[in-house]
């Protein structure tokens, strides 16, 4: 079984990094995993996304048209991916930024006030990890300690001071989602 996750947001929101953290955590948990970014001359400041596929056997396609899970951190991402999520799949979005009445009832949607939670954890830059935590609460692909470990190992040195806040954000995101009913 492969599970595919797309994480998408404005450039600078850390979509690619959150995906890498997830991929590292999966690898260290003994899973097979691929991570692939959007690349090329897309408008800067526009949308950036990455695809992570996690499984027990060698991964087939690293790119998918219909992901199992989507983390959408801005409106364009919600717009783009809502129709693409696999039937029965999961869409998490930052409800602080996106006020969206849901369009599909054949997927699970989870509104996460990620911006607010991130601010509470210390920085609006933590939205990506809040969302990752939220994802893992709904879809336990890897254990949170594995993610903590990945953050510890791969957070760039110049952001060492952000390690604790990131870990806090991860748990906050997870806790928030765990507390909500799935829609």
């Amino acid at each position, binding site marked *: 079984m492969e599970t595919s996750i797309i994480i998408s947001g404005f450039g600078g929101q850390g979509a690619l990094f959150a995906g890498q953290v997830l991929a590292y955590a999966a690898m260290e948990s003994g899973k097979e995993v691929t991570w692939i970014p959007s690349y090329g001359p897309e408008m800067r*400041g526009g949308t950036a996304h990455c695809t992570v596929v996690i499984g027990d056997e060698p991964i087939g396609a690293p790119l998918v048209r219909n992901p199992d899970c989507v983390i959408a951190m801005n409106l364009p991402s919600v717009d783009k991916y809502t129709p693409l999520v696999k039937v029965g799949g999961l869409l998490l979005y930052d409800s602080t930024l996106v006020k969206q009445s849901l369009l599909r009832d054949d997927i699970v949607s989870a509104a996460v006030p990620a911006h607010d939670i991130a601010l509470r954890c210390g920085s609006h830059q933590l939205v990506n990890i809040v969302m990752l935590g939220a994802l893992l609460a709904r879809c336990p692909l890897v254990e949170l300690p594995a993610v903590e470990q990945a953050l510890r190992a791969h957070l760039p040195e110049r952001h060492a001071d952000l390690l604790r806040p990131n870990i806090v954000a991860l748990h906050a995101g997870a806790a928030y989602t765990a507390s909500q009913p799935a829609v």
Partner: protein
Amino acid sequence: MTRGTVTIQSDRCKSCGLCIQACPQHVLAFAEEFNLRGYRPVQLDEREHHCTGCGVCALVCPDVVFTVYRQPLRRAA
């Protein structure tokens, strides 16, 4: 004396701020709201009546956001 004004195609604006820095009358500022593409567009601020229609904003703007108008002022006789 001339007064001027500009119209702003907000959805084209990318918040680069070049016009704000260049406007000799300092009448431009970022809006609070985001535009469709996620940028905070430029708008005329409360000092807009100082705009002379000099066109500098239009000259520096990479995204052709501005249309500029001018009105040669004559004090009504």
